[in-house]
């Protein structure tokens, strides 16, 4: 009986995900233009190897380590060359869905579906022989219970985001939680309420974030901050508060069908999404992300977050800032037309962005079953909205090239709309409560790189959507991408403007 009921529930929850006609939406239509600035380089994969990359690490000797869904750690040389002719070597195999990989102190620190492990090569033959389990304290009973692991933080801890049992259950311990595993193998719960993570790592300020997927209690995909005691929004995992004291008391149950901004006032621990990625327009399953620390080798977006999307095979940018103690920020389209569903990315020592993933199992735009690709900056700077930050009376926009100050100082160059989602137990949410704020004044900086917008009618808790189709650079070029989306959880205090944008 037990077996049957288990099977049945597995089927029930697997089936609705398999709705065939799930739409992958329309392309941005910017790929042709994007290719002038960021070139896609295919990394050839030998026919005998199925490399389903789930995680990357750049090794101290310049090799690339690849953790795969099929459980290999591969070491690759030649993948960073301008014209890659890679050689792949198997360092370890037989592991389970490698969705977190780091190399520190002569060891790999690996997050697999079953555990966090420290993996070493003791006899020095180039292949791992010592597999030490640091933590496997979480329950693992269903294939969809994925585990995404960060690279070690400054104290050497690996943060693990644990997917729920399915979208609506937390059947075994800590499903839907974030745990922190110390180098000594101690496991410390951090936060509850996760639904289906697909990437975890620090934001540009070094604070740990994770990528959440659209689904129950999540109107759209978003980046959220992971902080001790936080509740990430999906209450089904409250039952595990009994197993630990580190998070304090169980939060108040949020009310389904309300708005996140309203529930924040009621549910003290509820962490709002920092950056919402509007569904389809900005991805459908945001995944692994990294901060550009290439010091300009990847173009004008230094210290910004680059994040892939599994379903739409696109790469996007994001920026975050802390306002009134709450994280928020914006996302921007970057590059579309990648060959497969993206799971992981990593910056190379040359300052290119390495990407990889697979398209199996879920609807994906990219046609290849698996692929490794690289985005190389061509050296030409695209005209883009570089960054949006909140101001006490509006927004500050930064551009990658000087704007045409005549056009840029006209308020009607900027079309703003806002919306939010229903915060509910059901799957996803339509965009609701739309408003149209008005730009009353646009002040262009002398160098033409910044525009300060005075805006009437901003709405706290809403995504603010920018449409700048009329904008031109000083050279008369239109923007490569005309849209950007700022999630406004908080509005800065008038006098705190200068200090609130932590850098």
């Amino acid at each position, binding site marked *: 009986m*037990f077996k049957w009921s288990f099977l049945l529930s*597995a089927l029930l929850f*697997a089936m609705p*995900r398999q709705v*065939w*006609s*799930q739409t992958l939406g329309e392309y941005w239509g910017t*790929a*042709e233009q994007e290719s002038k600035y960021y070139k896609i380089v295919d990394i050839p994969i030998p026919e005998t190897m*199925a490399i389903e990359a789930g995680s990357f690490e750049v090794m101290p000797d310049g090799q690339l380590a690849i953790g795969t*869904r*099929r*459980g290999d750690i591969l070491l690759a040389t030649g993948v960073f060359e*301008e*014209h890659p*002719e890679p050689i792949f070597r198997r360092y370890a*195999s*037989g*592991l*389970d*869905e490698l969705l977190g990989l780091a190399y520190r102190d002569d060891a790999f620190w690996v997050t*697999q*579906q*079953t*555990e966090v*492990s420290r993996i070493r090569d*003791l006899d020095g033959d180039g*292949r*791992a*022989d*010592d*597999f*030490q*389990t640091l933590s*496997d304290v979480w*329950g*693992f*009973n*269903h*294939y*969809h*219970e994925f585990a995404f692991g960060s690279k070690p933080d400054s104290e050497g801890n690996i943060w693990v985001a644990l997917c729920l049992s399915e979208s609506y259950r937390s059947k*075994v311990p800590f499903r839907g939680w974030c745990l922190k595993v110390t180098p000594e193998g101690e496991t410390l719960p951090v936060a509850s309420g996760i639904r289906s993570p697909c990437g975890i790592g620090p934001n540009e300020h070094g604070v740990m974030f994770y990528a959440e997927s659209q689904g129950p209690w999540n109107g759209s995909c978003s980046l959220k901050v992971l902080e001790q005691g936080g509740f990430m929004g999906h209450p089904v995992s409250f039952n595990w508060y009994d197993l630990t004291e580190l998070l304090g008391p169980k939060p108040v149950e949020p009310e389904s069908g309300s708005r996140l901004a309203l529930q924040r006032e009621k549910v003290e621990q509820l962490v709002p999404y920092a950056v919402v990625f509007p569904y389809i327009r900005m991805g459908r399953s945001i995944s692994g992300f990294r901060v550009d620390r290439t010091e300009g080798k990847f173009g004008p977006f230094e210290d910004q977050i680059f994040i892939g999307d599994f379903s739409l095979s696109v790469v996007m940018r994001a920026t975050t800032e802390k306002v009134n103690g709450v994280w928020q920020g914006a996302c921007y389209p970057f590059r579309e*037309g990648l060959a497969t569903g993206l799971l992981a990315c990593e910056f190379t020592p040359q300052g290119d962005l390495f990407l990889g993933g697979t*398209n*199996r*199992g*879920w*609807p*994906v735009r990219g*046609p*290849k*079953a698996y692929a490794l690709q690289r985005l190389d900056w061509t050296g030409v700077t695209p005209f883009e909205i570089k960054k949006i930050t909140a101001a006490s009376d509006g927004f500050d926009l930064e551009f990658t090239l000087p704007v045409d100050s005549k056009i840029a100082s006209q308020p009607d160059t900027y079309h703003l709309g806002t919306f939010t989602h229903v915060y509910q137990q059901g799957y996803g949410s339509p965009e609701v409560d739309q408003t149209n704020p008005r730009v009353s004044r646009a002040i262009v900086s002398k160098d033409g790189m910044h525009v300060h917008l005075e805006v009437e009618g901003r709405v706290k808790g809403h995504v603010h959507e920018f449409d700048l189709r009329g904008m031109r650079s000083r050279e008369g070029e239109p923007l490569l991408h005309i849209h950007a989306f700022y999630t406004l959880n908080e509005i800065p205090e008038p006098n705190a403007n200068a200090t609130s944008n932590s850098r």
Partner: protein
Amino acid sequence: MELRLSTLLIFWFCWLGSQEASAQELSEQLQQESVEKLVSDARAQGDAVQGAILFAQKELGCANCHARGSGEAVGPDLSQRSEEMADRDLIEALLYPSRKILKGYETSLVQTDDGETVSLRVIRKGDEILLGREITAPYRLRQLRLETIEDIRLSPVSSMPDNLVDQLNSRQEFLDLVRYLIEMKEDRSRVPDPSGGGYAEGRNLQPHLAGLVLLDELNCRACHERAVSHDGDVYGVPPRQAPRLDEVGSRVDPEYLIRFIMDPSSTEPGTSMPHMLNQISPEARRPVAEEITHFLVSMDSQSPFTRETREVDRAKRGEALFHEVGCVACHAPRSSDGKEMEVSASVSLGGLQEKYSIQSLTRFLEDPLQVRPDGRMPNMKLDHFEAEDLAHYLAGSLDLITSTDFVVDMSKAAKGRSHFQELGCSNCHSTVGVPPLDAVSISSYSSGCLSQESGRWPRYDITRDEKSLLAETLSEETPKFDSRSKIELAMATLNCYACHPREGLGGVSLERDPFFQTADFNLGPQGRLPPDLTGVGDKLNAKWIRQVLVSGRSIRPYMKTRMPQYGASNLESLLSNLVECDDRPARSYPELSDRRETRKTGQQLVGNQGLNCIACHTYQLNPSETMSAVDLTEMHERLQRDWFEAYMRDPQSLSPNTVMPSFWPGGRSIRSEILEGNADRQIEAIWTYLADGRQAGTPRGLKREPIELLATDEAVMLRRAYPGVGKRGIGIGYPAGVNIVFDAEQLRLAMFWKGKFADPSGVWRSQGHGQVRPLGQKVLQLSKGPELFDPQQPWNPESGRPLGYRFQGYRLDEKRRPEFRYTYQGMRVTDFFKGVRSGETEVTLKRSLTFESQDAEKPLVFRLLRSRKVEQFSENRFETDEGLTIELRTDEKWELVEVGDQMELQVQLVASKPKVNVEVLYTW
């Protein structure tokens, strides 16, 4: 002995009365039957769908020779033979090919004067040329000059092989094939296609359009205002641009530049660069050419021109690429000694070895649009290494041409710059800082470029006819072109016609035909010849056309010729013109009453229980077993529905070269039991199914490569879910041929088996929701729950991991066999397994455990067996009723304990002992 065996076999065969030809060849068996019986059986029992697939299959290769719609194939178009053919003729032709050879399809044995013997079907014999098609793969078209032919004889043997039927597996397959052939010849709905195989014998471009193409090629507009009056769109494509020269210094050998500037057409015959220096006296030409070269090189003095030696292997690969990817669609193919063959309408390449270095040509080939933004030389989608190979072939030279060190003389360069401007070079080669000359209006054609005289104008080495064509074109008012003419202009300008026919213009020429090759002969001519673009704007979705033209999307991996990239800005108007010109009002289709159900039926039709599309078409990048026909999951994104509907009913009417059989001949479905055989509804169902694109459900009959994970001389491991084991299973296949699963959740040996290790498809395909499947035999499952436990603390075996256990991982030995480690209540355990061969075939599993007690307080128990019945049959050997024998070697105490209705073999572990060894041998 042999005789007796065959006699026996015949007896056995007769006794069976079987229709399977296993001993006797199928052809012999069929020849013994009456033709009438075969006809009636084929009509009654033959399955035309299976026949259609056989028709296209590689082993038989029917479609290679019997292409539909083409009069130039080796064999006759069977759909056009309905008048002459009775059912019985079909069967006789299959069983006795040489008995009756259709006139015009005999094999000719041609002997040439260089000793070659060619077996051909003669297609045409003119006064000088004989055109024929070779009767063996790759069925090349051959054009032989009659004067080189020594002898021609007709062969009495048909080109259709005698034993072809023996490639079939059964009589049933024969009936299927015949049934399909009957369907095909009875399909009278088809209008015979008179256009032939799509070769360039159709009409020519109208003279005024041809004049404009030439006007563009020579870039007359660069100087003459009259012709400049184009807005970019008038001609369907942006005007020609001469190469950019800002990096010419590192791209082209300066010596070559000097020679070329002095006399372009003798340095590079066929170049469109005019003779500019004929405006000055002959003796002044050399110094001026040098000064201009100094100026050009001075613009790119950072990276001087250098040469490298050719590598033979790379040049060899380059030669293959050159003749395969489409270079020879425009340029002349080359003989094995590297000489350009005389093939009409070829763009000459001149002396590339003198002009380029290998590296500079590589850079050019990787991105030709960088230097020539006008797209007349398109990007052939070569990767870096291909471009290098090609450059080794084209520009490499075995004896390194030493280029003299060219040092820029700035005073010469300054003079060069003024020559460059005064001569009007920058009118074509727009160059930063050098303004073009003012436009010149054309007052007469009796002086100037088009006259025979020389003067202050460049000299064009073009024919008299070309000159008069230009004069005529220039004197006429340029009409306002419609989209059709603009398409023709654009396609002629970009030479699309070298590969694609459209509306009777263009297509692969006979001379170039041999260089259009395929990786899949099963697809017939369609597999190698680029598609006819007639009506393409109505066939493909505009978005898809853009994807192909601009983003380089391609769905025909079997076609060796590549669809090049011309640059988005060069194609904008062609794109919109195609859509405008070909647009036909789309039919409207009724709303589906039950989309889900319709889709399901479509999936059934596509699968092997329906029309078996999956037998030939690729599905989600997985090629079918038969051939790699266009991916089903991309159809809906590409095609317009009206075209799809028409194509399904009669593929050949829209694509004469296709091997796609008609499944609704005469509007009747071959599968009458699905949707009552209604063609409209069946096609609608397939379309609805295809609408899901890459998410379309897997049709039945898709063959997937099995995955087998096997031990080598080292052990193999996979940590995933196994049957009866939770998600924390660790499966290991040992070299000796035993396999185990260790359960890292409950810390126990969970199962073992013999033979091959495992098939991971269940966890490596789709979302990974399945299990790893043991591949070997004698799979034994052991009972659930931890093996090491505290008898005072009962546990529920189904509830995952009880408290207190800590899995610590494993270490691999030199054969990559793991030693597992875990702790429980202060007891540290290591657990190691290996396979031990005993004798030739027997293999047992040997297990070595150690228990180190650190701060254990209580005695613990290690459970080795738990079964309904455990019997001890010697001092340390036990057997279960499942046929498992274990041999226990330890100094510790053990006992057989009854637990409920089960018996357990337990080893007692005393807390005070620092280290305990236990060895167990499993035999089963």
